[in-house]
C-alpha cells in the first residue's frame, strides 16, 4: 500500500516537501514505515532515529498497525520554545 506521511520543520526542509508517499507492505507498523522512509527518502535517513510516528494525531507505539485512511505524521527534530 501507499502511505502519505506529513512532514514538518527541518524534516520538511530536508525532504523539500511537506508530505511524502511511501510504499510499504499492507498493514505496516510504524517501524516498517520508518524503514521504508529511510530507503525511499535517503535525505531523511539521518533524522529518523529520533523520530516518532503519529497516527491520527496520537503517538503510535512501534507494534501498532497502520490502516488505510489513517493520517500519518512524522514527528522528529522538534524544537518548541
Amino acid at each position: 500500500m501507499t502511505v502519505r506521511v506529513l512532514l514538518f520543520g527541518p524534516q520538511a526542509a530536508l525532504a523539500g516537501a511537506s508530505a511524502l508517499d511511501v510504499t510499504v507492505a499492507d498493514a505496516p507498523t510504524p517501524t516498517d514505515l520508518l524503514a521504508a522512509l529511510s530507503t525511499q527518502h535517503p535525505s531523511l535517513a539521518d533524522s529518523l532515529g529520533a523520530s516518532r510516528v503519529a497516527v491520527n494525531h496520537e503517538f503510535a507505539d512501534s507494534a501498532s498497525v497502520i490502516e488505510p485512511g489513517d493520517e500519518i505524521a512524522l514527528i522528529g527534530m522538534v524544537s518548541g520554545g
Partner: protein
Amino acid sequence: MNAQVTVSLHSGPLSLSSQQPSQRSSLGGGARLVFEGVVRGQEAGRELRALAYQAYEPMTTRELRRLAEEVAIEHGVLGVHVEHSVGTVPVGGVSFRLIILGKHRAEAIAACDAFIARMKQHVPLWKLPVWADADADSDADSDSASTDDGRTDQPVG
C-alpha cells in the same frame, strides 16, 4: 489536588498582556514563575530576522496539555499555563511563555525545567530560521506554506 492547566497557541509573537495576573491570588500560591523564550538575533553565528514556528494541530495543543498535566502532578504545582507562537516571530519577540504557580520555589522551578526539557523532546512544535540575508535561503518560507496548520501561514506584524 487538581492543578489548573491552560494551553494556547497564538499567531505571531506573544503579547505582554497575557500573563494572567488575575489567576495569581485566587490560587493562593507562594511562587509564581514565568519563563519566556525570546527570539535571538543570531543562530550559529548567522544573523536572523525571525523564527518561523510550526505546529500540527490539534495534536500540538493536546500534547502540550498532556505534558502540563503530567508535570503538574509530578511536581505538585497549582497551575501550569502555556502559550506558544505559531508562524513568524521576529527577533526580540516572545515565542513561548510558561507560567507555573506553586506553593514554593523549589517545585515551581523543577516543574518549569521539566516541562521545557520534555517539550523540546516530544511535543510537535518546530522552528525554522528566517535569515536576515534571506535571499540565499528560503527554507522557512517554502516550508511554512506547506504545513496543514493554517495559522502558520499568517504573516505577523
